């Protein structure tokens, strides 16, 4: 009797965001900058032969960033940048490989919690976002206005534009009894004609450009697009390539960017609620 079997374990569902959830709070997000002006040396240009192997494994030098600062060379996707002597990390490029955290634990750490999504691409840069507060407010207000009718009940549609399969698992996880987004009025729909939110995963494979475009056009207004995963935000490790466009922002206008490789289900849920304006701006922060 399956019905009785289901009752045996009681309530498994999290109460987030109404109540805090320990797994959500401890969830590992992309890397973040702990100390933007680190005291130790390491920011100057150093010749490859003189690298102190105690700090950085020679194998872990990002070969594509030759010619950049040593700190910048740690990151395989080039997310780390030095601007006026301050360290900036673009979370939209972070694939959570952990090299920066292992090499310089004084400078880099892991962001914790589900609030990793942002309303603009520039808003994903830590510790100081690459976006003016006015523009952010404008984006937020525009989004809020557009989704006024959708707030309490939305339908999601998902399109895979060249992911590696993990983001699909994390999106599917939202519908298992632990997260159960049905309790928040969020449903999955089979046809884009009934959908309000488009979740796009994957680095933007060129074969999916047209289908993605068609799906977007098939959705009625108002609609919002959420780029789920670092691949969708910036292309991740797969771009640049002959087959990939480097993120989906070139094909469809993206409203919410969620970094992470893959982003945890709580982060995806946070992004959906952010897009709908159900997360207060104070918590959102970006």
């Amino acid at each position, binding site marked *: 009797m399956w019905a009785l079997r289901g009752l045996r374990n009681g309530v498994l569902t999290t109460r987030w965001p109404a109540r805090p959830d320990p797994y959500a709070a401890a969830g590992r997000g992309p890397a973040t900058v702990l100390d933007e002006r680190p005291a130790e040396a390491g920011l100057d240009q150093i010749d490859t032969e003189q690298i102190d192997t105690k700090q950085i494994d020679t194998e872990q030098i990002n070969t594509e960033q030759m010619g950049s600062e040593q700190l910048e060379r740690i990151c395989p996707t080039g997310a780390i940048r030095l601007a006026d002597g301050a360290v900036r990390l673009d979370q939209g490029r972070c694939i959570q490989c952990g090299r920066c955290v292992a090499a310089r634990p004084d400078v880099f750490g892991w962001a914790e919690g589900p609030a990793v999504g942002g309303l603009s691409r520039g808003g994903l840069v830590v510790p100081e976002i690459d976006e003016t507060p006015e523009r952010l407010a404008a984006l937020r207000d525009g989004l809020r206005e557009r989704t006024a009718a959708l707030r309490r009940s939305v339908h999601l549609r998902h399109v895979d534009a060249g992911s590696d399969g993990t983001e699909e698992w994390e999106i599917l996880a939202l519908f298992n009894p632990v997260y159960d987004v049905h309790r928040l009025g969020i449903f999955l729909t089979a*046809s*884009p*004609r009934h959908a309000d939110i488009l979740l796009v995963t994957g680095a933007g494979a060129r074969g999916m450009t*047209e*289908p*993605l475009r*068609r*799906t977007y*056009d*098939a959705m*009625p207004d108002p609609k919002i697009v959420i780029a789920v995963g670092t691949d969708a935000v910036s292309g991740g490790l797969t771009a640049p390539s002959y087959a990939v466009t480097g993120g989906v922002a070139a094909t469809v206008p993206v409203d919410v960017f969620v970094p992470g490789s893959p982003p945890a289900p709580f982060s995806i849920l946070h992004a959906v609620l952010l897009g709908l304006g159900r997360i207060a701006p104070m918590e959102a922060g970006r």
Partner: protein
Amino acid sequence: MSGFSAALAAGLALLAAAAVVDLVAGVRPRPLRPVPYLLGAAGSACLAVGGAGALAGHQARVWPAGVLGPGTAGLTADRLSGLFLVIAFAAATWVSLGFAGWAGQDGPGRRGLGASYAIALGAVAVFFVARDAFTFLFSWELVTGAFYLMVGFERGREGRPSAAMVTLAFGKISGAALLAGLLLLAVRSGSLGLASFAHVPAGGARTTAQVLLLAGFAIKVGLVPFQVWMPRGYAAAPGPARAVMAGVAVNVGFYGLWRTLAVLGPPPGWLTGLLLVLAGLTAVLGIAHAAVQTGLMRVIAYSSVENTGLILAGFGVALVGAAVHSPQLAAAGLLAATLQVIAHTAAKSLLFTAAAGITGGGDDDLDRLRGVAKRAPWRGTGLAIGGLTLAGLPPTAGFVSEWFLLEALMQQFRVPGLGFRLVLAVAGAAVALTAGFAGVTFVRLIGLVVLGRPGPGGGTGRAGAGGPDSGLGGRCAIVVLGAACLIGAALTPLEIRAVAAGLSPVVPASVTGGALKSPWVLQPVFAGFSIVSPSWLWLAMPCLFLIVALLTLGLSGRRLIRVRRVPAWRSATAGVTGSSRYTAFGFANPTRRVLAAVLHTRTAVRPIAPAQPDVAHLGYESDVIEVTEEYVYRPLLRPFAMVTRAVRRLQSGRLDAYLGYMLIALIAVLAVVTALS
């Protein structure tokens, strides 16, 4: 001579004139082509008027007894004849107009079609008003002959000659059965008059005669296992001739059955039971095949078979009622059957009139005819209304008649005796199953063929080929017949009064009139069981629709009327070779699988050797079998061929042999007559 008699005579005369005009003038000059059919329309109208008079009880007689020869009783219309005259010729008027329109547009290529059409109508009229066995049989054979001429008219095309031969063969067999039965009764009763047959004492002769008569009429209407000629025959006839055959002339069979019941009373119980079971079987078989056919004409033809099953199920209930001496049950059954006859006449005539010329000379494959409503809106509307009626959807006339039929079958609990109850239950189940599949069949017809988009599907395709829209005559026919199907439902109480009057030779009109609970509410003759009011339905449904539409418009602001046109969603695919939408064949495939027991579906996927590497390498085939043909007729072909070959030896071609045969026959007749007298 009263006015109505004059009307009858005028009608027959006009039909004769139509035949003469067609034979003399032929198809040239072109503007004169519709003339025979216009004359036929006028004749049909006169006949309908005469029939209405007879229905109301006035005297309507063409000529008195003895005119055609000793023993003949003249042509007189009583109420039952009047009822069928009205039904058949009211439809025939409009069908003739449609025929005239078709003849003007792309009519027959040579003379003869108008003549056979007029002969058919005339024979039908004479059959309805015949009072003696000789005229009865003569007109029956005329109808058979006219059918043969119509079906074989386009004998140059493939399959038509064999269809005509099959039609003729079955017509002849039915005529032979009628001849044997009537002669048996005539011998027993001593005269040729139909009314005198009622006094034949019960016994083997009467029962045999009943069996023969019922069999003969059943062949004409297409009861299993005699239905094999109908799809072939109807599909082979040209244009609106199909409407004449399937919509108008088929009523001779029903009239004959009704008349047999009136004259001879109920047959023995086993025959009633057999009839009910066969009726249920016919209905299921007919709709199963209609649901899976690939040609439009065959779909409509098999739907005729299905309707025969339904009508005969109602008739079977009437027979049961007569056998257990329950006039209410008999009335319920006959009323249901007659209402179904009316609905069927209107809808079938409408369907075949709308479908006449729809193919523009090509084949009538359903996939080729997609999108009729776009290129030929009048035809499309006609097909849609006819389809809705035959599917039994409210608020059409088909809904009312099927409701009556099911209600009549449900009265089986009032019948004493387990045998009758069982067969009534079986027939009821079969009728209910048929109603469901009728929905599937006509959804395919209306949804894919009428409302579908032309072309092979998926993007731009070539526009569906086909003929032009109906001419003026066709449009008139479609409008009136469509109105009969739709508004006729609202006017059912008036119909019931007329039908009650018409059925009075069989059951008293007061009993049948018990179907009217109140002026606009109907019940199945028995009170307290169930009610329906199609008239109120015709008020309520549009009102509800209007209320919902106004509410939606009001609550949605003005956004409801804003329309954004986008391509259909097809999973964002880039495109496929061939069709990506459901074909008519594909839509019927689940029915093929589910009813595989009835249809004996065979499918096969075979590897085929491709000519080039990137061409298809698998072939798919699927076929259904007509079980009656396969298991009843095919085994008979060999012995039949052997017998024919043996008998052919008699056709020696020698004059002395033929003279010898005549001498033998004459001596035998003399001997028999001498022995009997």
